């Protein structure tokens, strides 16, 4: 059995770790609330945007825009949203596993796909495994504003318009609830499922004309989808971090309980031994 002093030292160090993890849990919880609010505040924009785009797409059948057309897929782009730091449980590994599986299923050679990464974890992962990374953004704020990711969103959408990639998928953790984040893969471009959404109530007049409007609107729409996914991912990140820290705190508590038990046992054993030594000594004197 370990000595009393060893056990005491382990209890102390576990207590200190627990202090850190429980503090981080609280921090993540408050960040999560904020991130959830951000994601909610963004909903009106994305809904309005979707409604307008769907209305235009529905109102006439002959809309044509490169972003609406399905081309033969020669190269696929993946936009992966990860976090910058660890301590977030399975958050990053779930997303990266999804990415890896998708690549395995669909591609034979690295020429067929390229990756745009948000977050250091994803960036390091891709670099280590020789996955081609075209663009990356590291150090995104905890509560991103649109300007933070405007550039990468624009350049990614531009890649599609320029024909560099023929399909754009986005992989991120969808925030289902505080305790459940679902790794999600979504096809972003070409925009496909528009015709099912929206109502056909209004017949619009277009100023100057439909094509010009689509030229402005569709990139905005695609960028807004990317931003939406980022907000969703951030909320998931904080939720995942909160859960990871909570279970770390719980584990630390269990460990402290176990150690305290064996500490007390060792102490008892020591006392018993001392008593029997004294009794033994006394009886030897008689």
């Amino acid at each position, binding site marked *: 059995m370990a000595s009393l002093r060893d056990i005491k030292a382990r209890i102390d160090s576990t207590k200190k770790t627990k202090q850190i993890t429980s503090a981080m849990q609280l921090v993540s919880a408050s960040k999560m609330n904020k991130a959830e609010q*951000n994601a909610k*505040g*963004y909903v*009106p*924009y994305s809904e*309005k*945007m979707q409604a*307008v785009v769907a*209305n*235009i797409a529905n109102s006439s059948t002959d809309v044509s825009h490169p972003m609406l057309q399905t081309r033969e897929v020669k190269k696929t782009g993946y936009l992966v949203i990860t976090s910058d730091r660890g301590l977030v449980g399975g958050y990053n590994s779930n997303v990266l596993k999804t990415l890896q599986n998708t690549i395995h299923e669909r591609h034979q050679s690295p020429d067929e796909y390229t990756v745009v990464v948000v977050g250091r974890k994803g960036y390091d992962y891709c670099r280590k495994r020789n996955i081609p990374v075209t663009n990356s953004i590291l150090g995104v704020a905890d509560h991103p*504003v*649109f*300007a933070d990711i*405007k550039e990468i969103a624009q350049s990614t959408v531009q890649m599609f318009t320029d024909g560099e990639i023929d399909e754009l998928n986005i992989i991120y953790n969808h925030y289902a609830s505080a305790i459940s984040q679902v790794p999600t893969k979504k096809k972003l471009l070409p925009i496909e499922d528009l015709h099912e959404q929206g109502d056909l*109530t*209004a*017949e*619009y*007049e*277009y*100023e*100057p004309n439909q094509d*010009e*409007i689509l030229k*402005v*609107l569709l990139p*905005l729409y695609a*960028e*807004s989808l990317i*931003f939406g996914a980022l907000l969703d991912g951030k909320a998931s990140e904080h939720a995942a971090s909160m859960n990871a820290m909570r279970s770390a705190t719980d584990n630390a508590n269990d460990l402290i309980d176990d150690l305290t038990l064996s500490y007390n046992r060792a102490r008892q054993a020591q006392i018993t031994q001392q008593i029997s030594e004294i009794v033994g000594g006394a009886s030897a004197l008689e």
Partner: protein
Amino acid sequence: MKTLTVSVVTPNGPVMENEAEMVVARAESGEIGIMPNHIPLVAPLSIAAVRLKQGNDEHQLAVNGGVMEVSSNKVTILAQSAEKPEEIDVQRAREAKERAEERLQSKQDNVDYLRAELALQRAMNRLDVANK
């Protein structure tokens, strides 16, 4: 008098929701005024002020591009950013303006002119709206 409901929405949340008798915006094809019972319309906006008229009052908003949608007496402006005059950071806009001007005048090959020009427009727009 009849009014329109105007809502300005950005990715960071709604900026305002208000009633107005007339909305004047600068579309890419020129200025347009929207009054109640306007037919449904969609138009891309250029970087400029959007003016809301209510009686003798006039409110301004600095809107950075985006799209305007009009249907059933509702005007919805979707933009990547939009600010009320009191929310504008004049100092920052002034700095952005100087930076953009510097870039435009530098005449170097590695300068993205389009971007600098847009930055300049945004800064000027903010300053215009803030100074009224």
